[in-house]
């Protein structure tokens, strides 16, 4: 079946048409027919791009003031006789929506009924920048395609299997019951797909193994997946916690925040943007939030770029060790995301020196693997290391097929205190 996958942000909508069903996914024959996005929604020079395998990329500009118009535009492009891939909009049999936050309400992907939409709305307080935009995309798509099923796939759902000792913070318990302050974790769709695909590539079943998935992109997170269940992940209540990222700080002493607010007389807004937009690789290197630029600067001998790189890799290594300990061992480490898939340097510095726990990196294999799947550990390595390109859109499309086919696995949270 042809599935439209939508990832709606506040000013952009990314879309894909993916052909998949239960049979195809079993054989890994899912097909991306078209990939595109509408950017700068709300402005007079909004841009639509559409790329179809085997054809030159198409783009167009016009004024698009809201999501409804953006999705109508994307649909028109998809059925355009010259540039499109569909004969008619009715060829789309279902729509999958990426939703950032499902709170404690959603532990797997679900059909979007009015009740589900209301619950997603209620989760907006936890993701005020993302959930409302995701829902605007849903309402717009529903208006255009009211007759087909819409399915929500949550970034947080996969991590709902974490036990209480991993998801609760050491702060007064009533803050959890009153404000739902706890670790949720993000990138769940990616961690789920990569852990599945990595095990599949090794000829394993995910349900028999302990793996660590390392997603290093503009945002970075790492997850401990014990016999198919996420038992811990580095992002927390928000995507700020954990690893160092492009512009986000990751872990730090929370006491720094009130101290800085007092001493520098920073406002809430300023301290928020300081942590989310001025920190990470960018804040330390002073060069860029892009690892490729940081690596170039490091090669030129810039010390701050070098230390930014080292902090980045050191944190990955620390978490790998911690999660191996948390699971009582590990069978494989899977690297993904723009940096994880493409930077042998980062992988080498993050995973070297782990021979003590059975992980031996193969320098030649690591250097030769970029942007594609492949093993980067030695043949004799007890713990396998692989590069596994992530594919969140494919996972969303597959979940749509699973939900509609009634075979969506549910992840039952092990314990709830709510």
């Amino acid at each position, binding site marked *: 079946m042809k599935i439209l996958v939508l990832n709606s942000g506040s000013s952009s909508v990314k879309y894909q048409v993916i052909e998949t069903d239960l049979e195809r996914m079993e054989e890994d024959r899912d097909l991306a027919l078209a990939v595109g996005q509408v950017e700068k929604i709300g402005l007079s020079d909004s841009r639509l791009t559409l790329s179809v395998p085997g054809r030159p990329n198409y783009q167009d500009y016009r004024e698009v003031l809201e999501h409804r118009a953006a999705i109508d535009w994307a649909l028109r492009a998809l059925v355009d006789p010259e540039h499109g891939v569909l004969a008619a909009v009715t060829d789309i049999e279902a729509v999958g929506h990426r939703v950032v936050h499902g709170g404690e309400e959603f532990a797997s992907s679900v059909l979007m009924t009015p009740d589900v939409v209301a619950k997603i709305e209620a989760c907006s307080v936890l993701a005020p920048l993302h959930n409302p935009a995701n829902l605007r995309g849903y309402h717009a798509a529903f208006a255009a395609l009211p007759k087909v099923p819409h399915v929500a796939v949550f970034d947080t759902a996969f991590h709902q299997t974490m036990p209480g000792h991993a998801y609760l913070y050491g702060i007064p318990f009533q803050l959890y019951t009153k404000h739902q302050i706890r670790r949720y974790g993000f990138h769940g769709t990616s961690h789920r797909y990569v852990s599945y695909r990595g095990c599949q590539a090794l000829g394993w079943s995910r349900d028999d193994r302990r793996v660590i998935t390392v997603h290093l992109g503009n945002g970075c997170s790492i997850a401990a997946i014990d016999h198919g269940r996420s038992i811990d992940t580095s992002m927390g209540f928000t995507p700020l916690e954990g690893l160092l990222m492009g512009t986000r700080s990751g872990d730090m002493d929370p006491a720094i925040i009130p101290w800085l607010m007092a001493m520098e007389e920073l406002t809430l807004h*300023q301290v928020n943007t300081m942590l989310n*937009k*001025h920190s990470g690789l960018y804040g330390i290197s002073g060069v860029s939030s892009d690892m490729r630029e940081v690596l170039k600067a490091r090669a030129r001998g810039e010390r701050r770029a070098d230390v930014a790189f080292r902090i980045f890799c050191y944190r990955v290594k620390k978490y790998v060790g911690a999660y191996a300990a948390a699971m009582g061992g590990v069978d494989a480490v899977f690297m993904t995301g723009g940096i994880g898939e493409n930077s042998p340097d980062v992988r080498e510095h993050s995973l070297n020196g782990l021979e003590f726990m059975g992980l031996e990196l193969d320098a030649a294999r690591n250097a030769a693997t970029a942007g594609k799947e492949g093993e980067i550990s030695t043949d004799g390595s007890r713990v396998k290391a692989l590069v596994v390109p992530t594919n969140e859109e494919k996972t969303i499309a597959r979940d749509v097929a699973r939900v509609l086919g009634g075979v969506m696995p549910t992840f039952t949270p092990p314990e709830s205190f709510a």
Partner: protein
Amino acid sequence: MMGRSIATKVAQAGLNVSLKELSQEALESTRKELEKSLDHEIARFGLTSSEKKAILSRIRLVTTFDAIGDADLAIETVQEDPALKRQILRELDRRLASDHPIVINTSTLSITELAADASRPERILGMHFLYPVTTTRVVEVVRGQLTSDEVFDHAIQFGRLLGKVPIKVFEMPGFVTTRVALPLVNEAMHVVMEGVAQAAEVDLALKLGYDFRVGPLEWADRTGLDRILNWMQHLHVETGEPRFRPCPLLRRLVRAGLLGAKTGRGFFTYDANRRRTDRLPDDQPGLG
């Protein structure tokens, strides 16, 4: 200063804005000041350099009214001089499409009076932006006697679009913020003049006692004592209420040219970057 600050906020909200200056020279200085204030906010982590670039790309600096033809809304931000404001309004009224709102930015003047000779006074209303416009969360939206409901609602929406909380007010001298704040500031000045307490301690008492972020006298210094005097005189004349009579100490400071932060001295002293140089030890930032 006010025009620049409003233009920045409008551009920050993702809208295109033309900022009209009187001369090429003023325009150049505005361009520099725009850069400077955005750089300052970057240094305070409130903004990133790519956001700065995006903001500047949406602000068009012009010296003529030609740009106004296709604007959705116009805001005048000249000083609180009724004759000057009326002159600008006439230009805007003539050039802006007839159903588009014209906003007067004022803290004390009468919208109704300024709009009186416009061709369509129902499209004129007031918006009192408080400085610095980029960070202050409130805007007073002021309905003149003839302002239409449609235009008023439009302005409320515009305020929301800028990320502000609009406070709806009917026209009365000083609206809400200025009318309530000025007597407080004036009273603080009386306290100093009568020798009850020193200026620094008056401010500190209110900061620590009532959680004021800035004491009233420092606020007056930063606003400009000449502007404060001007507002008070206006309110005094308009209402005839003795509570708006400017404190004699305020008059004396203004006559002496001690206008506050911009001249380096008012109730307190300031360096070239407008930082206070005479804070009491108890008035330093800290965890408290």
